[in-house]
């Protein structure tokens, strides 16, 4: 599998020195070249094997799950960031999970997993959607663009540049969703789409995108750090570059 560019948090730690340890039976092998993601996966596996050691709980859970949880897999071809990938997926897999867990595209983030926070926002056929509420199978045949697909090589997109220029984030977790959302916002503004603020402010002919409009049109993306003033400034700047006056 092709690895996408990593974010800072996912950068691999330097390789450990010393001889490689032989794999011991029973405990999952933890690779000596640790990545944060790899560590979390190994730790999860250890947790699961400990849980399996509790016979009553495990038996009850197995009995309950056997009746309702026989996963059904389907082959699917997805087009993501211009590349075609063939996957065999559990029918329940959301687009967000397919991107993160099956394709290694971990830029799109899982916040609430219920369509309430916008951290998972990606573009499907150019339109912003919540990938956590989109079944992966339902977007076979669509063009999907994620945060990893916005830059051209080392050249950031105008929205990415604007977020960097205005410091439009603090912890950065919501940022990929904010940037995908803002990218779509600019296209929507170009085509004259309305918002409820357009109606309230009687701004109906190709509405001028005021700060009030930006706030409304970005309302599907929550920032828990509260970087909103800088996000609005970034979107304002990107709009200035992207929308012909």
């Amino acid at each position, binding site marked *: 599998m092709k690895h996408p560019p990593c974010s800072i948090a996912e950068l691999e730690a330097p390789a450990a020195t010393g001889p490689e340890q032989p794999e011991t039976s029973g405990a999952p092998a933890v690779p000596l070249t640790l990545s944060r993601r790899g560590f979390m996966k190994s730790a999860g596996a250890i947790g699961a094997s400990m849980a399996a050691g509790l016979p009553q709980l495990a038996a009850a859970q197995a009995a309950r799950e056997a009746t309702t949880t026989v996963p059904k897999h389907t082959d699917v071809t997805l087009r993501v960031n211009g590349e075609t990938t063939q996957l065999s997926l559990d*029918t329940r897999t959301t687009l967000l999970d397919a991107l993160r867990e099956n394709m290694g595209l971990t830029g799109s983030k899982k916040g609430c997993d219920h369509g309430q926070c*916008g951290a998972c*926002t990606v573009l499907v056929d150019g339109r912003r959607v919540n990938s956590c509420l989109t079944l992966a199978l*339902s977007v076979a045949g669509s063009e999907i663009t994620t945060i990893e697909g916005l830059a051209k090589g080392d050249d950031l997109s105008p929205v990415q540049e604007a977020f960097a220029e205005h410091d439009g984030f603090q912890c950065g977790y919501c940022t990929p969703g904010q940037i995908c959302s803002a990218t779509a916002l600019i296209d929507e503004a170009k085509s004259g789409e309305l918002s409820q603020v357009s109606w309230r402010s009687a*701004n109906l002919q190709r509405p001028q995108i005021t700060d009030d409009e930006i706030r409304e049109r970005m309302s599907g993306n929550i920032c828990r750090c509260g970087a909103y003033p800088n996000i609005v400034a970034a979107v304002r700047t990107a709009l200035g570059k992207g929308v012909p006056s």
Partner: protein
Amino acid sequence: MIPFDYERADSTQSAVKSIGTRGAKFLGGGTNLIDLMKLNVERPSTLIDVTRLELTRIETSTSGGLLIGALVRNSDLANHPQVVANFPLLSQALLSGASPQLRNMATTGGNLLQRTRCYYFTDTAFPACNKRIPGSGCAAILGFNRIHAILGQSDEGPRSPHSCIATNPSDMNVALAALDATVHVESVSGKRNIPLSKFHRLPGTTPNLDTNLKPDELITAIELPPSPFAKNSWYLKVRDRQSYAFALVSVAAGLEMDGSTIKSACLALGGVAHKPWRSPEAEKALAGARPTRESFLHAADLALSGAKGYAGNAFKIQLAKQSIVRAFTLAARGTTAGAEA
């Protein structure tokens, strides 16, 4: 989420044929269904994905109104030039709902079937919910009921198998109720049209049923008759934050003016009942009246005359009255005059 079979329908005929599978459901935008499946509230055995069907057109109907395909996305519908010009209530209502991302996903047909946001319905840890488990009671009556009904509810006490004080959360449905929409549906046994007023149900003795749509029927379109309210209408939504929240109370208000007299009016409320709450009494009182604060207050009193509140939502009775006055006041100013200053 329990495992399910997934099929993509390639025609309306094949879709309605497949829905015969026991426990099957149609998948539209998925914004509500997938969410409820993650919560184990919805547990379909099969999903029939209808999103690629050719039900995406908006066209002038034979009566001169509008025929809206069931798969038109909410954002496309809100921005369609004919909707903006002739059915502004619908555009305003749609743009008041959810977020840009969700409006890009949500379909017209799916929005009609949006389920209640009652906390006791969406959380399976609560044992009492007549909508989720018929006969189990209603935890909302003595619980947190800020977002619950004040009109048309079934309340025979928290233990009754009939009680339900849930509300319909949709904004679109409120505008469609005010605009006298008709729902077109199809099944293997044929086609039929259901007036919107008869599409959604009050809880009555069967709160598990939200609508009169049969389990094997597919919504294919919504039809709007020509509307006399385009020049003077307003959709007012009042909620706990300015955007991206469900209504505590919403009002779809329209006036057909004849000089300085109201010729006819439409009024529907959201967030207050198990279905969009149309008020024929208020509409009747406004016909022939002057568009004054007194007229609107009188209409508001009539619309809320049977209201009953609970510990967490009694404030909504007064809030609804004032929202009705405000919505009609803005409608009288003109749909394109805005709501500022």
